[in-house]
């Protein structure tokens, strides 16, 4: 009962942003298809990026999903627990829903450029895992696997955004400044310098190896690695977020 209302509220929160996002994406797609249709023989173009845009969009949705919602829930007698459960369900619904829409958009995009041999419409998934489906591109399996891959990745992105925003909410001013300076400082400046000077690029290589491993690029490639990794990441961020939300209080 309360949970249903909490989910409804959090989904309705995106009732403007999501349509706008797709409107922009669709316009870009159409414009691109038109502009590349004039390309002469011998020039090739690849259209992609809808998936990355969606992942980033959902990350931003996660970033904006806490403060105002929390205040609204407190005003209306909804507990932190119910609000958080509601967010997890919202993540599920948006991840599945937007991944489905993406699949349809991809299909439309491909249909639009189908008659042109020099224009290719490819998804992120296809670029990463094309080796897996060599000679088997028409079946249901790639579509299903891509869908699952996108759902898991979207969920992880939304949970990551939520984790960051709840972390910032809970930190005091000094903590916010400390995190804002130290995290990018270490990741963008400190670590690369340390890596270049002391470890001779080992960390950099290990990092990309880890990413490749987590996405299953070292094993096949196998998208199920990516799905499991994303789910693990989502679960981890969910646990951290809950620990932060559990004792969050209204600040004026």
């Amino acid at each position: 009962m309360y949970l249903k209302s909490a989910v409804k509220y959090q989904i309705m929160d995106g009732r403007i942003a999501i349509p706008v996002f797709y409107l922009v994406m669709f316009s870009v797609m159409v414009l691109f298809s038109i502009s590349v249709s004039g390309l002469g023989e011998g020039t090739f173009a690849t259209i992609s990026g809808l998936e990355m845009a969606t992942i980033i969009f959902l990350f931003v949705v996660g970033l904006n999903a806490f403060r105002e919602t929390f205040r609204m829930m407190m005003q209306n007698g909804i507990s932190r627990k119910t609000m958080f459960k509601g967010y997890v369900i919202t993540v599920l619904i948006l991840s599945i829903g937007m991944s489905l829409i993406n699949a349809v958009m991809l299909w439309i995009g491909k249909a639009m450029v189908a008659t042109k041999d020099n224009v290719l419409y490819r998804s992120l998934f296809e670029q990463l895992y094309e080796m897996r489906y060599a000679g088997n591109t028409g079946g249901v399996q790639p579509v299903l696997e891509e869908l699952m891959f996108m759902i898991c990745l979207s969920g992880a992105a939304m949970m990551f955004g939520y984790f960051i925003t709840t972390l910032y909410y809970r930190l005091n001013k000094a903590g916010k400044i400390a995190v804002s300076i130290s995290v990018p400082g270490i990741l963008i400046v400190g670590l690369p310098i340390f890596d270049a000077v002391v470890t001779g690029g080992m960390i950099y290589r290990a990092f990309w190896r880890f990413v490749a491993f987590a996405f299953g690029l070292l094993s096949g490639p196998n998208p199920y690695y990516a799905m499991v990794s994303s789910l693990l990441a989502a679960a981890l961020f969910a646990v951290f977020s809950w620990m932060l939300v559990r004792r969050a209080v209204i600040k004026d």
Partner: protein
Amino acid sequence: MRGIEVRNIAKNYGEVQALKNVSVFFGENKIYGLLGRNGAGKTTLLNCITGRIFPDSGQIFVDGEPAIENDSAQGKIFMMGEKNFYPEGMKVRDAIKWTEEFYPDFDRDYCLKLAKQFGLNQNKKIKNLSTGYGSIFKLILTLSTNAPYLFFDEPVLGLDANHRDMFYKALLQKYVEKPFTAVISTHLIEEVSGVIEKVVIIKKGEIIRNQSVEELLSKGYTLSGSASAIDSFIEDKTVLGVDSLGGLKTAYVIGTIDPASLPAGMEIGRMDLQKLFIHLTNE
């Protein structure tokens, strides 16, 4: 037992003890005045009950159910706070719609009727409402929820005299038709003194009075007369404060007194809630 029971709650902000071991009971279908000076802990207490903040220790029950992080207990309370808790871009109309979602007993027709009566523009964004209309918006929502426990934190902030009058009437009308528990937190005592039945006075995080208005008023009186006569008469009495003007003195006294025992030339008077409050909460 029906009611909101606050048991031994304490809340500290660093060195400041906002609430010190507060226990209080808000019974069913009564109108309470939660009175205290600015910073006495009124809002902190209400925020603890509504789960907006956590007390450091103690327990809170709504109709016998633990209140903290409990949807069904919190679903019985609606609090209009001084602060706006609605999202930045939300319109009045949407806030009404969502309150209806979270409070199933919400009376939409009544809400729209009040909105019309007060001239509240539903198409406005909440953040763009004036202070007065911001209060009116929250008052209307609160009265429309039909929740059994309604908290009003400084309800008449920014309201002009007509609107204040309309608010008290709407509150009483609703209360007569479908009784509820109201807790009105305010430092504007004169206006609510007739409306409230019970009074809870909070001073520096402690509850110093919790009784019916009448009982409280029957225990306070003023004595006026010449300074020397007053001084000797009040020696053995609980004196809240004195005002003097030249040789004349007025003492504010707690207790009961037999008017016949009064020395000649001394006058006895009753204290109203406002005066009593001022003297009770004086430093």
